[in-house]
């Protein structure tokens, strides 16, 4: 959490002003019983109406000054809390942009989104409340005690005794409840999980006729939750009654003690009333505090989660070279391996290949064999754990990452489009692209047909998550988005899986006749998608099981032949199967 205070930058004075004005407000409020005591002791016995009027004027004045300082406090608290969180949110977003793929994998996108949205909002309201109210309660409580001491030392001892007891009750019950609330939260998550499972798995549950058992299971989880809630409820319900008892007992002592002191002539009746009023003020404050105090651990937990994200150091160091050197090979891998952090085994091990401009390479292998990991090494999404990766003859570590990635058109397996027009999406990686460039790319990606039919054409608005496009349409737009960049290296990572065979083959034909020269790497599980590549790399468990042309591999590579046979050969054997 040490890395958080710096985001108060620009709001430090403001953040300190809020509690200051709050203290001022509390002081004015504490003066009220004093004034009332003066009315009772001096005004009433003397029948001095003018004095009473004056003192009531003082009360109004205190109210006005109190209001002014509260307004100042609220203003500064809002400014400080919101400012801090605005800074923090920006810093967090900026920080995430700097993280490498391995760090992103580690935290997970949905966790990051939660940090930036609901966690931050929780911290904001918690901080705002803390700046405003947390300062007030202790000051009223201890201020009331100090005022009591100025009235009468012996009576004030009752305050000195009551306040620690009250603190024990409030803090004790809170501390007792926090772990119980955590348990309730866990139970709630289980209920949530059970409900979610039943929605996602509705078909399977019905197929196995499990509706009744699932309802019973849910009822059991739900009952557990209810029990935990009642348990914590029983304890927290005791807080206010206990406080009430303590305060009223203290008041009883005060009045009794006050009577003795008045008898011995030390105190006046008005002073006893003032002491009584101070004790009542404490009660009101403590009840407010008790309601607030529970939200503090929640905000702190959120803040520390954000702090943890900010503490993640990007593991990659950016190189400096930005120009594209003359080189024989566009892509050169030499014994490259990749082991993800925390993994026990390499995902890619000892892969070597070279690729020139205009050449095509197919990569094939079963799910989980490391195909995506392998191509992720090229634009330096991940650093090779051993071996070397060179792009245009230069090690990727020496490249400025942005310039390096600028050479690529990379269509990812889990791709996504963004909300906005087709044109905006096409310019995502090429801000300067003209409409002609875009249409050309759309045509090559077999997407122009459907885009031109959509209302508005290039101005057709894609909804968030591309909800208004079919899977195949979205995939073609992702390919077009890569082509708009006129990339020197085009990587298609399993990016035609949602296309039917006919479209897929037209796409392949279009890619091979692009007017600019690209090195093209196609990753797929389908033999038909890669069999026409100049060379094919067969991956099995992260290792190279074969590298060559289709016919070479059929002769020399068992793994390739196996895949080929399972997908194609049977039909070539005719209808006998």
């Amino acid at each position, binding site marked *: 959490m040490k890395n958080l205070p710096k985001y108060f930058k620009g709001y430090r004075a403001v953040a300190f002003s809020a509690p200051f004005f709050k203290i001022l407000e509390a002081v004015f409020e504490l003066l009220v019983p004093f004034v009332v005591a003066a009315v009772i002791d001096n005004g009433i016995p003397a029948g001095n109406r003018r004095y009473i009027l004056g003192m009531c004027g003082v009360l109004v004045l205190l109210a006005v000054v109190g209001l002014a300082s509260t307004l100042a406090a609220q203003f500064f608290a*809002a400014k400080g809390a919101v400012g801090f969180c605005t800074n923090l949110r920006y810093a967090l977003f900026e920080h995430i942009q700097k993280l490498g793929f391995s760090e992103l994998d580690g935290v997970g996108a949905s966790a990051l989104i939660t940090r930036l949205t609901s966690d931050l909002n929780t911290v904001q309201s918690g901080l705002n409340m803390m700046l405003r109210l947390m300062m007030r309660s202790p000051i009223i409580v201890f201020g009331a005690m100090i005022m009591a001491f100025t009235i009468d030392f012996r009576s004030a001892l009752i305050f000195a005794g009551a306040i620690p007891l009250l603190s024990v009750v409030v803090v004790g019950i809170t501390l007792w409840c926090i772990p119980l609330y955590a348990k309730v939260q866990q139970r709630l998550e289980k209920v949530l999980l059970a409900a979610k499972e039943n929605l996602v798995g509705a078909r399977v549950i019905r197929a196995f006729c*499990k509706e009744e058992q699932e*309802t019973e299971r*849910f009822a059991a989880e739900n009952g557990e939750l209810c029990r935990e809630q*009642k348990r914590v409820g029983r304890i927290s319900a005791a807080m206010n009654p206990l406080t009430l008892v303590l305060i009223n007992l203290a008041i009883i002592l005060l009045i009794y003690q006050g009577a003795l002191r008045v008898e011995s002539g030390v105190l006046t009746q008005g002073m006893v009333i003032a002491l009584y009023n101070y004790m009542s003020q404490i009660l009101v404050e403590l009840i407010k505090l008790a309601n607030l105090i529970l939200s503090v651990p929640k905000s702190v937990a959120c803040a520390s989660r954000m702090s943890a994200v900010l503490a993640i150091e990007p593991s990659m160091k950016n190189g400096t070279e930005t120009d594209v050197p003359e080189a024989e090979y566009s892509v050169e891998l030499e014994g490259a391996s990749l082991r993800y952090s925390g993994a026990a085994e390499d995902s890619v091990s000892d892969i070597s290949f070279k690729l020139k401009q205009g050449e095509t390479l197919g990569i094939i292998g079963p799910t989980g064999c490391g195909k995506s990991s392998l191509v992720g090494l090229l634009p330096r999404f991940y650093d090779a754990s051993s071996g070397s990766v060179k792009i245009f003859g230069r090690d990727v570590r020496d490249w400025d990452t942005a310039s390096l990635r600028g050479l690529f058109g990379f269509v990812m397996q889990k791709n996504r489009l963004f909300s906005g027009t087709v044109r905006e999406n096409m310019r995502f990686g090429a801000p300067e692209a003209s409409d002609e460039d875009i249409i050309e790319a759309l045509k090559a990606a077999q997407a122009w047909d459907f885009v031109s039919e959509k209302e508005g054409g290039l101005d057709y608005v894609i909804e968030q998550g591309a909800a208004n496009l079919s899977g195949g349409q979205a995939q073609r737009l992702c390919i077009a988005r890569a082509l708009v960049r006129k990339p020197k290296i085009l990587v298609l990572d399993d990016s035609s899986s949602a296309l*039917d065979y006919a479209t897929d083959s037209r796409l392949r034909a279009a890619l091979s006749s692009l007017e600019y020269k690209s090195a093209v790497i196609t990753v797929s599980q389908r033999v038909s998608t890669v069999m026409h590549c100049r060379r094919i790399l067969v991956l099995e468990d992260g290792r190279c099981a074969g590298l060559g042309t289709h016919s070479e591999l059929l002769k020399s590579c068992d793994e390739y032949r196996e895949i080929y046979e399972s997908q194609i050969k049977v*039909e070539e054997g005719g209808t006998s199967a």
Partner: protein
Amino acid sequence: MKTKDTLLKVASVLGKSRLLMFCSIALAAASVLMSLYVPILFGRAIDCIAEDGISFELIFGFLLKAGLITLATAAVQWVMGIINNRITFDTVREVRRQAFEKIELLPLKYIDSHAYGDLLSRVIADVDQFADGLLMGFTQFFTGIMTIFTTLGFMLAISPRVALVAALLTPLSLFVARFVASNTHSLFKKQSEMRGEQTALIDEMIGGEKVVAAYGYSDRALDRFGKLNRELESVTRRAIFISSLVNPTTRFVNALVYAAVCLVGAGTVIGGGMTVGGLSAILAYATQYAKPFNEISGVVAELQNAIVCAQRIFELIGEEPEQSDAMLPELGDIRGNVEIKDIKFSYSPEKPLINGLSLSVKEGQRVAIVGPTGCGKTTLINLLMRFYDVSGGEITVDGSNIAEVTRHSLRRGYGMVLQDTWLRSGTIRDNIIIGKPDASEEEIIAAAKATHAHSFIKRLPLGYDTPVGEDGGSLSAGQKQLLCITRVMLSAPPMLILDEATSSIDTKTELRVQRAFEKLMKGKTSFIVAHRLSTIMSADVILVMHGGNVVEQGTHSELMKKGGFYAELYNSQFAK
């Protein structure tokens, strides 16, 4: 659903705890009366403290009474708290159970057409909000009204003049609060709009961070984010500041009332209309009297919110369930003759999907359904399993119309492996025995061996008792698929539905599973949705689907001869 209907539903749910509600109200009334009586006793005790002679006996009596009443009040408050908790949490449990039960009974059409997030938030968040808001709002409302009238009564008893001052001036704070609140409403609306906009951007950019990084969009994303962030800051700051004015301004009005009561009260004391102790009590009441006015305005908003939540929940609970089939006969001893007779179906009336499909499948035959992704192959599965009902024609199994037998008896006849594997949280064993809860250890292991799942299961830390996390957690896609196949293998139903079942297992395992499937399918009627041509080739009938329609059906050679869509599909894949 209309507000009135919702309120009726709410009343019927609360009716179950009406005894407790009655207790709660009675206790609240007692608590208010007692806690307000204590200041009077304190005031009388203070009255006994006068410089000209103090009666300790009287003081002692008043204080003892105050002490006892305090203890009683505390006890009543605590019991009331527990009762309120009980009403709230029991209601939550009951409503949540009803909602969940309804989810299990609703037609899949409903679940498919609603976002999971929306349904989940109804079952979880809305239920909480409803119960908290309604019940707490109710008690606060009641206690508030009680407090106002009791305080007013006590004040009137002490001094009608002073009471009048307090009673007339205090509602001012209510107007002030109203005034401030009406100004914040539009700011909060603006804030939540801005927040929504920013959240959408965060969702897209952070969710798609890898694409953003790959296409060098980071700087532009940061610019867009920064701009929204600054705008949000200024709106939020104003919203928070203005809304935080409610408390201080009402407090200010209260302070003014306090001063006025003090002025009039002191004057009355001088005139002999009231004692000093009475003044002190009335001053204590002046603050208490004002409080409920502020709270009630908050309670009204909370109640409105609770009603909205209740509406959403009861809408779900009141949704029409699937027609009960308890009266229908069971489909017994399934042999697996499936007859599809001229069926019609569409998800929405304006988009007809299946129009007059007929197909006859004899016991033990294999039907392959092929076509590009998204062509509606899963629709057919939905109809076969009666996840959806046909709108015309009929489907029969062994001569019985499936609409005229119980769904459970029909579905027990099928073994289904879907494309999206679904595992529930629980152990590996829990997941395997889902279709046959009484399976013996030997049967489980035999099934797992048949699907080649045994070898990876036994290598897991706790073997068959290894817990599976949410949605499969740490298992690979292939392993999840194997588990799903194993559970069908174990329950051994007479008919099978396989939806691209083996598409994500690595080649070697796939070949083995293929053989296991051959074993499983022997003698069983099977419907297979597959991309793999080898599976398709071995089918007795191929259904070719395109654009949601069955365009061709026949065997491989028939379809090739026909030279239609199937032939084009086939040739495009193998065009040299």
